[in-house]
């Protein structure tokens, strides 16, 4: 069992200060970029020190999970500020006005030392965009998948081994029974295609994942990341590989590693990893670091038992 990060990491206070200074024209771009590099190096070092796997660069160059796609895809732009689910965090909604095609450049959003790319999954991308081009949502998802396939090939050529598809909308919509069988089939078949290129996982969060885990597992989608802050442990009973989001990225309450270990032991499923339940960027940097330490402590407790 390993520990891994699953989303955007908070920026260090030094980088936050530097970005403010840069915005006000008080420091040069070069100076700002040095601070960006320092922050990325620190996040990578901390993961290595704690024995994390599937190292990420904290997605420090990403303003939100969609923004790079407004630059690397044809047919889309980043527009109005929109609330990201039930958080006091906002993203710029992707506006789709033409056919989506990958035009290159994704690697500029990845840093040296990254082993995993984290991107919006097909369903979440389609769900949270404003589509003015596609008549059928399935066509939109398919073209985005084609772009992800091209990106995955580029990543593989550049030594990146892991791809994680973040799919909060699957959980959010399934709760409201708004996801169709065809959409589930498409998500699964595309996932299996991407898995042929990179070691791929799907991460579910911001809602009770128990039902979505079942239908994805039935379609041979695995490993599946689960938000355990929103899902009752006893509701999970699948044979798929699981990565459990066991520390809360949206609260500063520091979990007890022993209690988490007990909870993990009681879950029916093949648990291959643990993680925060979602992006740690909802916490300040120091609290995020402490949550990472808790994950390491959970692994130690489990090893000893």
């Amino acid at each position, binding site marked *: 069992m390993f520990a891994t990060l699953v989303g955007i990491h908070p920026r260090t206070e030094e980088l936050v200060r530097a970005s403010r200074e840069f915005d006000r024209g008080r420091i040069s771009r070069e100076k700002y970029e040095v601070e960006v590099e320092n922050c990325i190096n620190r996040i990578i070092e901390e993961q290595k020190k704690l024995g994390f796997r599937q190292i990420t660069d904290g997605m420090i160059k990403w*303003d939100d999970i969609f923004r790079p796609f407004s630059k690397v895809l044809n047919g889309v732009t980043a527009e109005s500020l929109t609330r990201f689910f039930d958080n006091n965090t906002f993203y710029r909604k992707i506006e789709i006005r033409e056919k989506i095609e990958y035009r290159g450049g994704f690697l500029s959003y990845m840093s040296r030392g990254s082993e995993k790319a984290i991107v919006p999954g097909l369903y979440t991308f389609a769900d949270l965009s404003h589509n003015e081009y596609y008549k059928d949502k399935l066509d939109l998802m398919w073209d985005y998948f084609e772009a992800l396939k091209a990106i995955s090939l580029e990543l593989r050529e550049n030594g990146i081994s892991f791809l994680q598809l973040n799919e909060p909308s699957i959980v959010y919509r399934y709760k409201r029974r708004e996801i169709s069988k065809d959409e589930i089939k498409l998500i699964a078949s595309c996932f299996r295609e991407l898995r042929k290129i990179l070691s791929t996982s799907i991460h579910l969060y911001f809602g009770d994942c128990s039902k979505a885990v079942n239908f994805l597992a039935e379609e041979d989608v695995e490993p599946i990341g689960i938000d355990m802050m929103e899902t009752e442990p006893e509701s999970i009973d699948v044979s798929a590989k699981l990565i459990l989001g066991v520390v809360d990225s949206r609260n500063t309450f520091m979990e007890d590693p022993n209690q988490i270990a007990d909870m993990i032991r009681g879950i029916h499923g093949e648990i291959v990893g643990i993680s925060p339940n979602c992006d740690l*960027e909802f916490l300040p940097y120091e609290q995020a670091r402490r949550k990472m330490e808790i994950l390491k402590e959970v692994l130690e407790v489990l090893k000893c038992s």
Partner: protein
Amino acid sequence: MLLTQEIGSLSKPNWRVKYVRGEKLGKEDLKELRRWAEFLEIEEDLVKKVEEGKAEKKEVVELSALMAIRLLEKAGLDIVFDGEQFRTEMYEYPLRYVSGFRFLGPVRSFDNKYYNRAECVDKPRLLSPYHVEEFLFTRRNTKRRVKVPITGPYTLAEWSYNKYYVEKYRKLGYSWKNLRKPAKREFVLDLAKEVIRPNIAALIDKGAEIIQIDEPAVTTKPDEVDIFVEAFNEMTSGLNCKFSIHICYSDYSLLFPHIYELKGKVQLALEFANRGIKGYDILSLFKEYDGEIGLGVVDVHTDDVESPDTVKERILYASKFIPPERIYVNPDCGLRTRSWEIAYRKLKNMVKGAEMAREELK
């Protein structure tokens, strides 16, 4: 009918920000100060004191507040405040007067914008009421009606980490999934009772007649809207004052049916202009709501100044859904993101547009 009001903040002029920070004012800052002081007919001795660097910081804050009041008056608003010139912003400023919170550091709101987020580590207690001084200042300096904006308990809770109550409910044996709502409810209600209600009572005691509770976060978690309503009733029951609630950039349909439980005829001051004319269609949901509607007719996120005709059209369109007797006219939100120049022009046209609508509806 169609009384005009502001929602809260105006931007802080550079000369005010720099002076308070202890920085030297540049030529442009002094020019800006002089230009607005003349336009708003501010007493010369006050301005001179700042220009000569002889004013206390408090006097500079008061001068910018006085100028904000005069700006709103000159634009013609019926109901005014001081542009929140005494406050830094709407989250950190109030919590500095409350025990039980610890600030942890910057958390991203969007892009490169961060706010200093606090965690609740103990039951919140009010250290001292924090809006009385600015209310009294505004009261002394205007003959218009005054409305005081206060950040509401739900928003303060939602923008903070709920460590204290989560810990409590974990000890009580609640699962992660089941503790969120009761832990939040207790947090919000404690803020309402222990922090916001005493603030409101202190303001009423000093003569406040209109209080606006700012709750921009209220629909963030759709299953918690009932908590906000319960908290509002808790903190206002038995207090003699006109209340308004400001909500913006939210899905207003989520307020239903909960807002029918609000006690008293509470005004809802809402943002609409940002959504375009069709954005007012959601007012059809409010037909059965018997409180007033504060109608956002001016977009605070663009420098494009709405013409009086546009404002009039928006009001007339909205009056198809809500009787004009129940409509107040306001910007979508505080105008702090605009320059004073733009804010003034927008407000002046808003007042003119309201006048034109009033004529047409006679």
